[in-house]
């Protein structure tokens, strides 16, 4: 027993050094060569950091493409999904409200055109992406609000579709909105 305890104490100290000191600092060191220097990639507009490429942002103004509903309102100091079950009546009412609100802000769009991702909360609350359909369905509103042709906006969306070999195609909402601001 005493022998086991002695070994345990010494081995624990050695393993702490290896697993909690050497290992993470090795990874941190090498990652300095990674994009963003290992601290996350930021996006800069006119010399000012406007966000992290991979962290979604809250867009509420009609002139911007909206991202997905978020259980934490895109507060990136935390993260959470809604954790609502599929049969929860309160939850289904929230989704219904989101649909109604979307239709009010997007005249000319029918219910059946709204992809479910625009009215359901993401897993992280920080989802930076939309599907191409999720962006296209907002084109009418953007064009009307900004008084530009739908064609221009639609082309811009198409240019921002990141096609994947496998897995879903995505549009990064922040990048798309930055490009939108730079149109004029």
């Amino acid at each position, binding site marked *: 027993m005493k022998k086991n*305890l002695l*070994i*345990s104490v010494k*081995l624990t100290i*050695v393993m702490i050094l*290896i*697993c909690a*000191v050497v*290992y*993470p600092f090795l*990874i*941190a060191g*090498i*990652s300095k060569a*990674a994009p963003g*220097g*290992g601290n996350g990639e930021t996006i800069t507009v006119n010399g*000012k950091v*406007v*966000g*992290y490429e*991979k*962290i979604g*942002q809250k867009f*509420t103004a009609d002139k911007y493409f909206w991202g997905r509903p978020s259980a934490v309102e895109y507060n*990136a*100091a*935390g*993260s*959470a*999904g*809604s*954790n*609502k*079950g*599929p*049969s929860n009546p309160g*939850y*289904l009412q929230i989704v219904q409200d989101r*649909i109604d609100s979307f239709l009010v802000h997007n005249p000319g769009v029918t*219910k*059946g*055109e709204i992809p*479910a*991702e*625009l*009215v*359901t*909360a993401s*897993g*992280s*609350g*920080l*989802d930076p992406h939309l599907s191409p*359909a999720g962006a296209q369905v907002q084109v009418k509103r953007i064009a009307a609000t900004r008084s530009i042709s739908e064609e221009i906006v639609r082309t811009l969306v198409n240019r921002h579709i990141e096609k994947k070999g*496998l*897995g*879903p195609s*995505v549009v990064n909402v922040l990048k798309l909105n930055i490009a939108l*601001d730079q149109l004029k």
Partner: protein
Amino acid sequence: MNNEISGVILLFLLTVILAYPLGKYIANVFSGKKTLTGFLNPVERFIFRVSGINPAEPMNWKQFLKAMLTINLLWLVYGFFLLIFQDKLPMNPDGNPGQTPDLAFNTAISFLVNCNLQHYSGESGLTYFTQLFVVTFLQFVSAGTGIAVLIGLFNGLKEKTTNNLGNFWNYLVKSITRILLPLSVIVALLLAFNGTPAGFGGKDSIVTLQGDSVQVSRGPAAGMIAIKQLGTNGGGWFGVNSAHPLENPNYFTNAVETISILLIPIALVFALGFYINRKKLARVIFGVMTFLFVIFCSINIYYEMKGNPAIDKLGVAQTAGSMEGKEVRFGAAATALWSVATTSTSNGSVNGMHDSLTPISGGVVILDMMVNALYGGVGVGLLNYFIFIIIAVFISGLMVGRTPEFMGHKVEAREIKIAALVTLLSAFLIKGFTALAAYMVAHHPEIAWQVKPGAWLNNPSYHGFSEMLYEYTSANANNGSGFEGLGDNNPFWNITTGIVLILGRYLPIIAPIAIMGLLANKKFIPESPGTLRTDSGTFGMMTLAVIIIITALSYLPALALGPLAEYFSLY
């Protein structure tokens, strides 16, 4: 759509292709053969010398378990105190507070037992110091403990008659230096170069395009994420685990992380075949596990891609599947695959919220944790499967009227009693505690506790019951995922799940090792034409039947009250 399905099929095939050579490598490492990582020999010799370990010292099953339990107890005390006092320790750029004693009790146990149930959120519940010195450290050594114990079992199977299961310390150290650490470095760098933070910059403040002020949590996450995936730990850096865009930035990292969940558990099945030189036995075991795994995956992929019928009724286009709690960059199919992979292996990391899965998928992931032996946690998955084998041997023996034997050793009353007790224990813990919690919710919702039972659940009705059932199933399986809507950071849940965690970890480790110790000590009976062959397809089906029957008998009523009832209310 099809693109998503081919994605998950390729992913699984690739995992198996990688796991096979890894299994061979693991067998070589522990049988002392030459391997690619021979250059690490001096490092291990140094560790042994400093710690006073003689790696060649034989241990019988009792000595083996004593060594394992001693160091585990030390880690528990160590983790507990660091978590309580983390606010007074260095490396806390975000100024996070110390954990309350009941939370620290739960967290320390949870990481010690390789479960990683997290009743806190990583961004605010830990400091960088405890993320590394408690969480990352325990993620390595708890996974190493699982592998070491399994190698002890392998030794019992390998020899005809022996009371030597090998040296626990030797296996523990080599599991880390030869398997977990090298693989973690590779995975961590793949993540870091795809955008996962690895540096020590704390929270960043930015002003968004629309003009809101936002803080962004970061930190040295990549290394911890690698070991949480590889060691079937599952406890994430950020609150939402691998659904977080920094913890799992794109479809490629999602593939890497999914493979990392399954890689070592599958490799260990192959390692069994190489180590004891019974490749056919390993193939049969792999076949049974994969059969159930593929069925579970197919069900979940189907239901998640099909979407939630209640959302369909609202009239929107659910072409991408059920997206509540999911991320656009992974899609429904890859999230469904992950949900099964993580519950099969007692990993418990998630890339989408399980609480929002459609009812049948939610039921499948709970069921998967109840079986807890489809590949299973590193090391312990095969130990759980071993118990099923012993019971299958016993029942087969009864059916043909012959004394049950396994690998040349008579399986007698004592071994069967131990195996049966362990099997019953899980059902007792899960259902007993779920019943207790449900009783509190139903009959004492307003009792003056820190969080009233009436406020525990995030969803009403059947789904609320599933939240409680999931939590105890996850704790017992040492899985660590949750229906996270459950309000679980309060003394009732911290303490009860803590108890389930300890019993659910150590009894299923002690029992198979005890059985193995007892069996290996017995006289070896050479194989004859009358011997029940445990490496045949027939016996594989027998084991499968045992798994299905035991699980169905134990858990079907509980599943009927939760996920099944919700299904029938929705469809």
